[in-house]
């Protein structure tokens, strides 16, 4: 029997590995991280039992991680970065950097659980050292035991801001402001979903308890719209604005801080799925995700997709999808196993919660009014708002793809992972049009999954 190859060892990948192994399939589980757990259960090299206070539910994570390590059908490659991939005649070829060398995997069967990363919006000063993503601040604490700074402003939108603020306080840092751009009332849009997913409410209260111990109160309808550096070139303060429902500024004040953690939810990491040719689509939050059928199969037979890669919905939905993807993959390699109705019911319930999240934390176009001509948009290639406007007004670009070619916006090392989504919105607003799905999908086209410095490959051989 062939191996089921699974990429990503977060909630989705761990669940998929266990489900496939339980069905009798041999599994190879790969992750670029040094440890299992993905983003949600990110952990450090300290004994894992000592890390529980940085987590709402590390017990479930430990259960899955220990089960994966214990099962003889599952081989794990940690520190394995897939840097390039292609699909031809039913065979997927993955080029993997592992233990200082390159390994090539050819397989007909793949489960992609590559997760997501923080969505960011450009604003004046967002490239000053000290402005970070909430996920970045959290990963430094969970993965390395390091607080990024002493006085932190946590801002943006989405429920993820709560665990980040709580984590900073538990690690001994000070959260000077916790700012949610949307109004808290938006949750009333989905009362039944809230009741049905009561563990999610418990999770929120768990974080809110810690946050109130840190003597911070969350403010709603407030956003960070600019950052300023001091004479040392480091972040010194941010401009905090009360905003309207459409995100346009009402009134501004200045707040001193040494770190600003600002994020607007998540963007799926479709790099690997895209390179293999899996069909991508635009989700309700306008983010690009991998398309999946009811068995979590992508548009390519034999390639299954699960977790945040198929749409942002949190760890529990990722697990529910992972189980189904693992079973489907085992079936594909010949195991006698079926997806039960209970599995699909569980996924549907978590999906309703994910849909409610998207309704509750929209990103409204008023953020575009926070930008100035000199604001950097593409951090890699140092392209400003003014450069993009010039490409449109003077060079005649009529869509984001052309504007990109004129300015190199989104064509640096990160390949538009950071700015791509915002550029599509910015260019469309400038042209007074609505972005098409093709605009959005073409913005995530990345020939290389992760650029590897020349010296690294050479040194490994």
């Amino acid at each position, binding site marked *: 029997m062939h191996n089921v190859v699974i990429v990503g060892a977060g909630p989705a990948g761990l669940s998929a590995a266990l489900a496939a192994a339980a069905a009798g399939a041999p599994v190879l589980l790969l992750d*670029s991280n*040094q440890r299992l757990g993905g*983003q949600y259960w990110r952990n*450090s*090299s*300290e004994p894992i039992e000592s890390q529980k206070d940085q987590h709402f539910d590390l017990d479930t994570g430990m259960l899955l991680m220990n089960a994966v390590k214990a099962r003889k059908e599952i081989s794990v490659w940690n520190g394995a970065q897939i840097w390039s991939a292609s699909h031809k005649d039913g065979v997927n070829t993955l080029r993997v950097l592992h233990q200082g060398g390159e390994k090539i995997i050819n397989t007909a069967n793949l489960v992609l659980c590559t997760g997501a*990363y*923080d969505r960011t919006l450009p604003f004046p000063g967002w*490239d*000053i*050292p*000290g*402005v*970070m*993503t909430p*996920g*970045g*601040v*959290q*990963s*430094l604490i969970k*993965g*390395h*035991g*390091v607080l*990024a700074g002493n006085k932190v402003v946590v801002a943006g939108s989405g429920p993820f801001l709560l665990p980040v603020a709580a984590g900073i306080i538990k690690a001994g840092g000070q959260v000077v402001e916790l700012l949610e751009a949307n109004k808290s009332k938006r949750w009333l849009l989905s009362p039944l979903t809230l009741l049905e997913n009561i563990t999610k409410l418990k999770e929120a209260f768990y974080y809110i308890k810690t946050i109130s111990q840190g003597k911070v109160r969350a403010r709603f309808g407030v956003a960070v719209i600019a950052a300023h550096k001091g004479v040392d*070139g*480091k972040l010194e303060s941010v401009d905090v604005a009360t905003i309207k429902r459409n995100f346009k500024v009402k009134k501004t004040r200045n707040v001193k801080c040494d770190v600003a953690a600002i994020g607007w939810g998540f963007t799926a*990491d479709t790099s690997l799925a895209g390179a293999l040719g899996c069909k991508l689509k635009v989700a309700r939050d306008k983010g690009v995700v991998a398309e999946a059928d009811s068995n979590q199969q992508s548009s390519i037979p034999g390639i299954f997709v699960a977790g945040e890669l198929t749409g942002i919905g949190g760890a529990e939905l990722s697990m529910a999808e992972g189980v189904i993807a693992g079973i489907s993959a085992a079936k594909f390699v010949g195991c006698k196993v079926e997806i039960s109705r209970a599995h699909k019911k569980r996924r549907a319930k978590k999906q309703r919660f994910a849909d409610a999240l998207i309704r509750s934390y929209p990103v409204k176009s008023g953020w575009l009014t926070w930008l100035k001509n000199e604001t950097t948009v593409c*951090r*890699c290639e*140092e392209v400003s708002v003014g450069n993009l406007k010039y490409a449109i007004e003077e060079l005649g670009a009529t869509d984001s793809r052309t504007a990109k070619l004129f300015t190199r916006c989104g064509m*640096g*090392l*990160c390949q538009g*992972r*950071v700015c791509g989504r915002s550029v599509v919105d910015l260019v469309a607003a400038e042209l007074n049009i609505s972005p098409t799905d093709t605009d959005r999908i073409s913005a995530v086209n990345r020939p290389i999954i*992760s*650029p590897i*410095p020349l*010296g*690294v490959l050479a*040194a490994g051989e």
Partner: protein
Amino acid sequence: MQSNIEFTFDGQKMLALPGQSVGAALLAANQRTLRTTRFNENERGVFCGIGICFDCLVVINGVGNQRACLIEVTAGMNVQTQVGSHA
């Protein structure tokens, strides 16, 4: 508490805990600037923390464009601020 690992940053002696990334160990020492940009020579440091943004680029043992937030510190590692694209 585990014992510290020694490495250097721009020739200066630094300490890291086992398993810590270069970026985390440098932030712990309040060292926020990891590189300067190619065109405007702006200072940049850790931004996404998970290997997505390529803003934390440093030169490690002579090889440039390495992500400080991903690479674990090893004993004796020679880390340098990256200036421009380190061609």
